[in-house]
């Protein structure tokens, strides 16, 4: 695994924040990835076109960075297929009923000083820390 230098991580964060800011500034939308993807599922939202193009850009983005870094920034999945399937279900279901993921609650919501987003962010980070400890240290998956 190639470590990420802190200034590079900071620059990455500025790109993510910049993307969220531009989307709000031009289109008036919160850049919540879970919500953007969610509304592409049936019943498909009327404004699905920008959402589909956002996801296409999201998938293409890392490939523009790869030549710059000199290595592929996309890492291997960290766990086996059954665990990935369970995790995927939890992430999809959880972000849908709580109306947000890391980007919507953790970046956009916190920037709007939303108490709901603060509570959600603290909850998913705490749950993530506990889950990581139980799954990877205690169970050894």
């Amino acid at each position: 695994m190639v470590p990420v230098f802190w200034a590079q991580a900071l620059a990455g964060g500025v790109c993510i924040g910049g993307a969220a800011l531009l989307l709000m500034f031009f289109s008036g939308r919160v850049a919540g990835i879970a919500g953007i993807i969610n509304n592409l599922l049936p019943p498909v939202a009327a404004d699905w076109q920008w959402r589909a193009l956002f996801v296409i850009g999201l998938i293409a983005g890392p490939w523009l960075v790869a030549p710059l870094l000199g290595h592929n920034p996309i890492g291997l999945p960290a766990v086996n297929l059954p665990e990935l399937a369970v995790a995927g279900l939890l992430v999809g279901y959880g972000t849908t009923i709580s109306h947000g993921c890391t980007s919507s609650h953790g970046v956009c919501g916190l920037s709007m000083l939303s108490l709901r987003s603060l509570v959600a962010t603290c909850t998913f980070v705490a749950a993530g820390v506990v889950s990581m400890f139980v799954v990877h240290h205690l169970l050894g998956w």
Partner: protein
Amino acid sequence: MARLIGLLCGLLFGIGLALGGMTNPRIVLGFLDVAGAWNPTLVFVLCGALATTFIGYRFALKREAPVLAGERFHFPPRKPIDAPLLAGAALFGIGWGIAGYCPGPAAASLLAGHFGTLVFTIAMLIGMAMGRR
């Protein structure tokens, strides 16, 4: 025009995820591993993103409406802190701690051709469909 903005923002978002190491689940799990070999990379990513939106939103939201004609600011409805918010965030966190993927990085990793990323993403879409009913 909204479509072009969507594409550009998606690209920039994907670039940011890759630069910040979030397309590597080991780095994300390292951030959650406070009791083990803690990896602070995500702290810098989050600080960079938050500083940008926190300051930028102050200016952007001073406007009456977004730049694109015919658009308005779409804010999530003001609601109290309820059980679905807490339960959903907790379930999301559990899944995040298992795989090290949240929705953005999983999607951004798809083209690398790892079968596990595809399995995670399909399961995530099924989970989303279950959550919508």
